[in-house]
């Protein structure tokens, strides 16, 4: 007979303890980008709500942005660094497929021994990471988990691409997640749509580039397909998420969807019949779309500006390449 194995004791819930944020050091206005794509400041503002995006200087890497955000989140959380058990980084722009950015950060943060790995879920990545952190903690597999969404997308855009490049910015957002007596992170609603694998894509593979068959691979997308999916599918999933979290739309204080396009944000608010007094994350206007970093950056901003407060009910939802999506209802630290 096989022996009975012991498993870690389950923990009732998890919570976000603190956030950290780092944006690219350069503020890039629309006018700097419109020339090669035959666009205009007005067109971009009207269609996307973006006025500027932040991008990082050549000598600032995605690892630098990540480290700055991570340090702030850890410091604000007040945890003893020895109780940090895992680092999960969501990124599509760390230029090394291996080793992971998470293991690099583990060393830099003075905890080279922790569980550390990267995930690739693009703009849904931060919410994927929070879902994993919540599961690790509740299963008793980790005490505190550092989740980071970090991108330096400016390395993977083409100045002549009209489909996506002008939307994108650089930044990193981090959260420390820890145990809680009661759940302060609701069930993660997540998934993907593999039939739309190529709806948001790279122009080529690194092998194509090596073999001279493609230019340096950059991002491109079928914007209309993404827009329609983002509005229609996301609203449905958010409704499902509220139900599974046991709350109604009237209980929501703060709404932070992925900062993809202000018009998507507005339309989601409309579809969800979000009450007027709900605070909505609109960091995209100044920061642009920073993919995996956009949700924690927008949330961090609302907390820093006092628009959102500790104890508020936050609805967050990421969606993007894959087409992967994920979200949670959570109580703000």
């Amino acid at each position, binding site marked *: 007979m096989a022996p009975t194995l012991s498993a870690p004791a389950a923990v009732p819930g998890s919570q976000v303890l603190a956030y950290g944020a780092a944006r690219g050091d350069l503020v890039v206005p629309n006018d700097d980008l419109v020339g090669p794509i035959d666009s205009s400041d007005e067109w971009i503002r*009207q*269609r996307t709500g973006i006025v500027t995006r932040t991008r990082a200087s050549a000598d600032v890497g995605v690892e630098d942005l990540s480290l700055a955000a991570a340090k702030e989140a850890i410091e604000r959380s007040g945890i003893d660094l020895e109780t940090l058990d895992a680092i999960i980084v969501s990124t599509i722009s760390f230029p090394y497929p291996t080793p992971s950015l998470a293991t690099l950060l583990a060393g830099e943060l003075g905890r080279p021994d922790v569980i550390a790995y990267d995930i690739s879920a693009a703009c849904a990545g931060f919410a994927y990471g929070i879902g994993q952190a919540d599961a690790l903690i509740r299963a008793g597999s980790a005490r505190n988990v550092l989740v980071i969404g970090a991108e330096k997308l400016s390395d993977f855009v083409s100045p002549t691409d009209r489909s996506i490049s002008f939307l994108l910015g650089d930044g990193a957002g981090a959260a420390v997640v820890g145990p809680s007596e009661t759940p302060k992170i609701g069930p993660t609603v997540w998934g993907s749509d593999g039939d739309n694998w190529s709806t948001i894509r790279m122009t080529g593979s690194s092998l194509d580039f090596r073999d001279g068959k493609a230019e340096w691979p950059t991002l491109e997308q079928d914007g*209309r*397909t993404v*827009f*329609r999916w983002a*509005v*229609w599918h996301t609203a449905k999933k958010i409704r499902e998420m509220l139900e599974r979290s046991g709350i109604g739309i009237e209980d929501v204080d703060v709404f932070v969807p992925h900062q993809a396009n202000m*018009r998507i944000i507005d*339309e989601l608010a*409309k579809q969800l019949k979000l009450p007027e007094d709900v605070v909505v994350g609109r960091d995209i206007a100044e920061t642009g779309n920073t993919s995996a970093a956009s949700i924690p950056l927008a949330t961090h901003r609302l907390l820093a500006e006092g628009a959102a407060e500790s104890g508020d009910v936050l609805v967050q939802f990421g969606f993007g390449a894959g087409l992967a999506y994920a979200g949670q209802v959570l109580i703000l630290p």
Partner: protein
Amino acid sequence: MAHTENEILEGLAEIVNEETGVATEDVKLEKSFTDDLDIDSISMMTIVVNAEEKFDVRIPDEEVKNLATVGDAVKYIEGAQN
């Protein structure tokens, strides 16, 4: 239950009003979405998504660019119901 042309026009006018603030009585069959009603490509997408839901039809993206006037959209939705 299939909607009549009039019901579709009324429903569409409500959607256009919700999405863009254009008065429902201005949403007439002969009006062009872009030239007369000043609706941009993004608002057009949100109108289409809402119309799909309301009338239980599929309006593929390739079709949307053929829907120049309100009448084009009404006709398309009417045909797509069956």
